[in-house]
């Protein structure tokens, strides 16, 4: 057995120190696998990857909930939670330990199921939400050689399991036997389905240019540098528009503000998870945030170059550090958007999806094709940017035309 471990060290010995830190987790995993008998190796490999994902991303979720509350608080000119440290000790953390009592609270609250509710479906809904969301992490490349399973049709797998989340939303809303839950669930499903189309269409442009559905290939296609700047797709006109569309659509897919009409507290109590309390509510909350991280991870892979660094003199930073940094940066942008923009009404939401984002995504596909076939000089930048900007103006005008803006009309109750 020790000679197998020797073999693993041999394959890694010739790497430089920077590469060794970069491949640290890969090396650790192969070390553990070398100490395991041959027949059990696939199982142990899968268990290790799953344990790492289950440890890291809920940890990021806990930190992000704190940053969200403090961040939104500061933008709204107030402190967020600023007292909780680590419980039962005297360590003061100025509010950064808030997730511990939050977790304990949701675990120990009473689990109330309405009497007329459909018990089996009510029980299964949080599980059906959590499983596809965790499955989606299996295809994301977190670092160099650090994908759990690199399917041939990886992007299709991601969107397929993303579509399964809508079913759990319906199960939650219908089984609660509550008309507000059902209404919230219907609205949430309509919103998710409508925004899935711009999401997938903006990902199609990247697939078109790369020529493969494997996420590892998509990252590798962005991994080269000109004048020190990486060839991320967000630095091209069609990639920039695609990235913006992807971000807006992923805000809508995770039911985050300003698209959180189905679950906002001042609108419909809590929408489809009104009747959930205690641990099931915590599972829904966790599932929603994990879904947000997964879709941000996909956006990073498609448009922001995955685990590559933006400038060529910073490539010594390990690849997984870049991935997590980009993810946290986009999460901060999401928190900022949530604290700043007002909520969209349901019809405004659907208008935005079908009448603005879908045509713009289709124009984006055409522009990506033009970009690919034009000669590689400055003219294609001009042509592509002009086409996209023209389409944006036309569609924006079309959206604004239906608004009746004018003097405010007061209506009093008679």
């Amino acid at each position, binding site marked *: 057995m020790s000679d197998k471990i020797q073999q693993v060290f041999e394959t890694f010995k010739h790497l430089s120190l920077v590469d060794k830190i970069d491949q640290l987790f890969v090396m650790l995993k192969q070390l553990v696998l070398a100490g395991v008998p041959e027949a059990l190796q696939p199982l142990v490999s899968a268990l290790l990857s799953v344990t790492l994902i289950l440890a890291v991303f809920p940890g990021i979720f806990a930190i992000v909930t704190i940053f969200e509350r403090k961040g939104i608080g500061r933008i709204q000119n107030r402190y967020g939670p600023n007292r909780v440290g680590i419980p039962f000790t005297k360590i003061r953390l100025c509010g950064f330990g808030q997730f511990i009592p939050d977790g304990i609270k949701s675990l120990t609250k009473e689990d109330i199921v309405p009497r007329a509710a*459909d018990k089996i*479906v009510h029980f299964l809904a949080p599980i059906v939400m959590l499983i596809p969301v965790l499955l989606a992490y299996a295809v994301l490349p977190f670092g160099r050689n650090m994908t759990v399973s690199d*399917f*041939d*049709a990886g992007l*299709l*797998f991601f*969107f*397929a*399991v*993303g*579509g*399964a989340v*809508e*079913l759990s939303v*319906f*199960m939650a809303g*219908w089984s609660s036997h509550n008309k507000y839950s*059902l209404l919230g669930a*219907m609205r949430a*499903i309509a919103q998710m*389905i409508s925004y899935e189309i711009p999401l997938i269409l903006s990902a199609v442009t990247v697939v078109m240019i790369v*020529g*493969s*559905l494997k996420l590892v290939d998509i990252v590798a296609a962005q991994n080269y540098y000109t004048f020190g700047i990486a060839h991320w797709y967000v630095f091209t006109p069609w990639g920039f528009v695609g990235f913006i569309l992807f971000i807006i659509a992923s805000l809508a897919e995770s039911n985050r503000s300003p698209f959180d009409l189905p679950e906002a507290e001042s609108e419909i109590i809590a929408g489809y998870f009104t009747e959930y309390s205690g641990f099931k509510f915590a599972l829904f909350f966790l599932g929603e945030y994990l879904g947000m991280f997964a879709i941000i991870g996909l956006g990073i892979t498609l448009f922001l170059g995955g685990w590559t660094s933006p400038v060529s003199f910073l490539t010594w930073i390990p690849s997984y550090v870049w991935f997590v940094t980009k993810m946290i940066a986009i999460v901060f942008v999401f928190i900022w958007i949530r604290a700043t923009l007002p909520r969209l009404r349901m019809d405004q939401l659907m208008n935005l999806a079908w009448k603005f984002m879908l045509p713009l995504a289709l124009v984006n596909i055409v522009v990506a094709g033009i970009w690919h076939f034009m000669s590689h000089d400055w003219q294609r930048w001009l042509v592509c940017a002009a086409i996209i900007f023209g389409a944006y103006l036309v569609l924006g005008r079309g959206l604004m035309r239906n608004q009746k803006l004018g003097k405010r009309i007061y209506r009093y109750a008679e």
Partner: protein
Amino acid sequence: MSPAFIIIIIAFVTLLAAASAMSLRNLVHSALALTITFAGLAALYLNLDAQFVGFAQILVYVGAVAILIVFAILLTRSGDTPNQAVLAPGWTYGIAIAAVVFTMLGWAVLNSSALPKENSSAPAVTVKNIGDALMSKYVLPLEIIGLLLTAAMIGAVIIALKEPSKTDNAGGKS
């Protein structure tokens, strides 16, 4: 846990879910059992090395058709458990004919000499091959499918559109 054992379990779950989808009283439960059937079928496709088809099955059937069926159940107010009979009159003939169909198909499968006997390896089909074929050899069916889906979408919207309120036959047959 040999692979054959897992395939048998998945096939059994699929068939059980299909049977309950057709025999449950509550329509929403039946729709959810149908979703389990679709997922089981996707697992069978993945077992048969058809990756693209398996993921497309989950995307289209579980993500879209199941949601359509559920929306239709709710829009026709059939979400509660019905208290009338659920089986059409003459249901025994239906079950008998289905049994006859299955017997004939099963007999044909088990005793046919046209089936290849040796176990061949999986054909190596990547997504790139599917994409190339869709653009070169199967481009006509691709365009026709695009046209068909557009026509189906427009047709479905027009059929299900609420008519502007007319003053006659508002109360139909009940």
